């Protein structure tokens, strides 16, 4: 059973991990919208493809996370990349085979793949 102190410790530790504490680390977070809507649009293979690519490239600072619905049905499957000190990047309508390019050029290379970003629909 957790005490309030323990709750606050977890909060502090997680906020650091998620880059929410003002300090920064080199973690990259890739969230894949995996609610019923995303799954129906094919987000599961996209999720798996990102996991595979990140492993293949040995990117230990990158975490692939499943999350809920972002709200924009027509753009599913959607993936967001968050990184300390940088603007969030939203990729839309991804297929599993786009994971390779994004992993190589963006997650490893630091350059967002403009072909797949939301403003380029």
């Amino acid at each position, binding site marked *: *059973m*957790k*005490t*309030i102190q323990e*709750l606050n410790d*977890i*909060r502090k530790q*997680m*906020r650091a*991990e*998620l880059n*929410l504490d003002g300090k920064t680390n080199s973690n990259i977070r890739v*969230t894949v*919208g995996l*609610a*019923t*809507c995303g*799954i129906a649009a094919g987000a599961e293979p996209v999720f798996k493809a990102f996991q595979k690519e990140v492993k293949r490239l040995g990117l230990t600072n990158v975490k692939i*996370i*499943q*999350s*809920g*619905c*972002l*709200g*924009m*049905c*027509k753009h599913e499957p*959607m993936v*967001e990349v968050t990184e300390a000190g940088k*603007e*969030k*990047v*939203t990729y839309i309508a991804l297929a599993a085979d786009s994971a390779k390019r994004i992993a190589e050029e963006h997650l490893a290379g630091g350059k*967002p793949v*403009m072909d797949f*970003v*939301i*403003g*380029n629909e």
Partner: protein
Amino acid sequence: MAEINKCLDKTDFMKKQYRVALQNSGVINPENIDEYIAYDGYQALAKALTELTPQQVVDTIKDSGLRGRGGGGFPTGTKWQFALNQKNDTKFVCCNADEGDPGAFMDRSILEGDPHCLIEAMTIAGYAIGAKQGYVYIRAEYPVAVKRLQIAITQAKKYGFLGKNIFGSKHCFDLEIRLGSGAFVCGEETALMTSIEGNRGEPRVRPPFPAVKGLFGKPTVLNNVETFANIPPILLKGAKWLQGMGTEKSKGTKVFALGGKINNTGLVEIAMGTTLRTVIDEIGGGIPDGKKFKAAQTGGPSGGCIPAQHLDVPIDYDNLIALGSMMGSGGLIVMDEDNCMVDIAKFFLDFTKEESCGKCTPCRVGTTRLLEYLEKITEGKATMKDLDDMEALCEYIKDASLCGLGQTAPNPVLSTLKYFREEYEAHVKDNTCPAGICKSLLSYVVNDKCIGCTLCKRKCPVDAITGAVKEKHFIDMQKCIKCGVCMDICKFKAIDKK
């Protein structure tokens, strides 16, 4: 070259939204309790249990002005106060996650994206009213939501946020999931509780209200998923914070499932008081193919259609009711010039007629009769007297039905009659469907542009088209099923729909 926007938050879709109930959805991993904690998860529970008395929790919710998001808009704090006032050792907290409105998925998204906020809120509610047990009634058609909520419950138990002496306090609370099989009427509060008790989900007379005599005859608070999702932020940020958002009598935000003839279909959360025009034109990105807006349907099968002249009305509970619709649980369907309003009313009546539990006659027989009138109208067989009789029947069903399903079932008919009466009259008097939807009133005719290419003749699924090569073709209206294939494929625009 203008810079390409890379971020969802900067789109028009997001900029006019205000996220409270959906704040963590799409942000955190719903299967990881630590991520919820990182975003202040379970802080509100800790605060309630260690700093506030149950009465103070209820007062905060009352002061915030929060009203139920499941349809009726009843003040949540007042409901909790009724239950707190009951002297009884056994009380319950229930969550309505039945979400029966066709096309709605607000509650599902919260459950799938942020299940811990529901657990935290229900545990707070348990403390506030003195309940040790909670139930989440959720439809079995939501397997992902059920799975994620189950995982979240297990994690919360492990951390001691559910169970005995939470945060070392005297408060004990447990939570269980109950699966419903998707009958619309089981979303009605008394039917829902009867269903949890293991009986056939039929509504019963109120009073007694659930806060006095609810689940297993005990005082019970029942709230919608989205209502609960507002509780932790209110406790953390204070009643004034919610007070400051919205209109005079509707505070905070509302989530809508935006659908129909709109460019950005999806899930949107807006501050109360936002206009329909903002939701449709800015967040929704307008109507596809340059078509003209005709009406917005809110409130699902219990609601109504709001026409263009009221697009600038601020969305809140009372304004929508004044317009003959209602907030409902958050369905928002946009219709354009190609939608027939009689057909829309028929769609909803078809739904309520099927979903009527049959317990009371005004609803069971009334919705069937109402649907028959609508069918007659769409087939061009109705008289003007039928229109008047139908309207009178609507009032009768509203007044005499036992539960909300029957009491609101005529709303789709009444509101379309109110704003689009001329469209009903066109069906009746002129035997035409102005929007070109009602099949019985349509005919497909070959015009003089026909060069006799025989393409339509070969593609017609029922061989309704005759004609020799290079001669004008002819459609046999007795055989034609009005599928529209011929008109779509003709390269010479030689077929008209009338």
